[in-house]
């Protein structure tokens, strides 16, 4: 009986001490657009720095920002910039407005089914489609069929970026089917001849990107390295790391590596675009 008690106490003590004994891991949470990139960065960095542990999870930029504010992550990946009220919430809890570090560039691609004859749109038309004002493909040069809208959950930075820059902060049409990840959007559009979706340019497989025009008379631009870098693609956006305080120690090593030539090269490999 006594022996069991001793064993139990030892186990309890070990369990309680374990979180303190375990090495300090860097937590990275947030953007689903960036989650693959983040994982690849983490993998490569961990290979080069044994002993360092980096955990990467997705959930959407909103999830990452909330985790940053809740204190449950070290680095937040975000495909949109933090909003004012989010920065204020962060300040309320941690007395900081957060540190914003752009780490890569992305083109927000618009996908349609490979059989869709429509090849290009203006940003304004795209907005009208997702606001629910343009509902049929024939209104923009396609077949006579209802446009099926696919989008992201509101936790997504891509959702936030789209809402701000394409919809000019107006509400999405209620008919947008919300999917939890870019890949799900791609998957849905790839199966739906009348579908349209949006997401990071790196994910477009089995679907076709639409050329985007800034205005009715501008040339249509596809999201490729050159156009995203020089900004001629209308929907290019920076991808961010957000931290609560200036990176130091292990975190600084990781962030510096991400911004280095090696890290940026990996970003290109994954399908994104370097900062410069």
């Amino acid at each position, binding site marked *: 009986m006594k022996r069991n008690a001793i064993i139990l106490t030892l186990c309890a003590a070990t369990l309680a001490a374990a979180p303190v004994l375990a090495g300090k891991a860097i937590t990275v949470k947030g953007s689903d657009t960036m989650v693959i990139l983040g994982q690849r960065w983490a993998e490569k960095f961990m290979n080069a720095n044994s002993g360092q542990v980096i955990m990467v999870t997705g959930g959407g930029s909103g999830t990452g920002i909330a985790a940053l*504010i809740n204190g449950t992550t070290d680095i937040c990946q975000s495909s949109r910039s933090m909003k004012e009220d*989010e920065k204020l*919430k962060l300040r309320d809890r941690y007395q900081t407005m957060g540190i914003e570090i752009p780490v890569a560039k992305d083109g927000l691609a618009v996908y349609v089914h490979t059989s869709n004859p429509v090849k290009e749109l203006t940003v304004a038309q795209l907005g009208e489609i997702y606001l629910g004002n343009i509902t049929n493909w024939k209104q923009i040069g396609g077949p006579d069929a209802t446009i099926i809208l696919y989008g992201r959950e*509101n936790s997504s930075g891509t959702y936030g970026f789209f809402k701000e820059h394409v919809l000019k902060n107006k*509400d999405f049409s*209620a008919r947008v089917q*919300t999917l939890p990840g870019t890949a799900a959007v791609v998957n849905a559009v790839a199966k*739906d001849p009348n579908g349209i979706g949006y997401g990071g340019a790196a994910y477009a497989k089995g679907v076709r990107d639409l050329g985007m025009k800034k205005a009715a008379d501008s040339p249509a631009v596809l999201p490729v390295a050159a156009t995203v870098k020089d900004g001629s693609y209308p929907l290019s956006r920076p991808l961010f790391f957000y931290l609560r305080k200036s990176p130091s120690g292990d975190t600084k090593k990781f962030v510096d590596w991400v911004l280095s030539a090696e890290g940026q090269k990996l970003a290109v490999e994954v399908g994104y675009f370097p900062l410069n």
Partner: protein
Amino acid sequence: MSRSLTAPDSPTSVRARQRVRELFIEWALRACAFSAVAGLVLIVVFVFKEAWPILSDPEIQKEASLAGFFATPLWQPVGEVPKYGLVPLLTGTVKVVLIAMLFAVPLSVLAAVYSSEFAPPRVREVLKPAIEMLAGIPSVVMGFFALMVLASWLQSVTHSPMRLNALTAGIALGLGIIPTIFTVAEDALRAVPKSFREASLGLGASAWQTAWHVSLPAASAGVGAGVLLGLGRAVGETMIVLMASGNAAITSADPFDSVRTLSASIAAELAEVVVGSAHYSTLFFLGALLFTVTFLINVAAGAFVERLRKRLAGA
């Protein structure tokens, strides 16, 4: 029941020690039983507590309030002006649950009648394991199947413009609750005393007449309980609708439209809320609403079971 009947000439100290130990053990066990009550109470307290700011905190109410829930037709909690319209979520939930029940109840009850009244033992040996296997399929797998296979097949049959819609989610949900309804209904039917059936058959009724006019009515309370339990499960189910319903907050009566249910909204959005924000409280409010509805359904189901027990015991 007396605690210890030790021989009268045992040392009192041993008896006293034993009595103290027995008392201690009894209280430990009572605490275990209490844990069930405590668990339920804690769920109510903590879910409702996090939802309470919707009704009490003016700061939160500026963004999300009870009136606001019904003032706007849109559910767009993230944006310049967050909109927390519950109507699309409520209609979405009702639509999916309705489709699920219309699909599952006739199938389950008919199959239960077949199993208990007509089926030869060999058939029952196939049916029962099949139902057990269906019951053993986790809802995430059911959602996966709906997303990958069922949605495409349904779309090819119905030519619905939206692949992930209320019908897909509803049928998958119905599949998920069939075991619940079937098991309870079949148990109730088999619990009907043999004498009822034999009397009916003896009077010249056919097997199906017996089933329809005697067994089923006698087991009605049990069948009703099964249906209610299935309903409760359908209302609360999350993974299937999260994966298969399209999650578009559309308010319409069209079964081929995507829907967004209460449970799926919570699951999809809870990860991204800042603790204490209006969005956070709203999601807990949805949870409290779900809890209340399923709780009432379960209490009703319990009452039905009580009635069944009384009827079969007394009749």
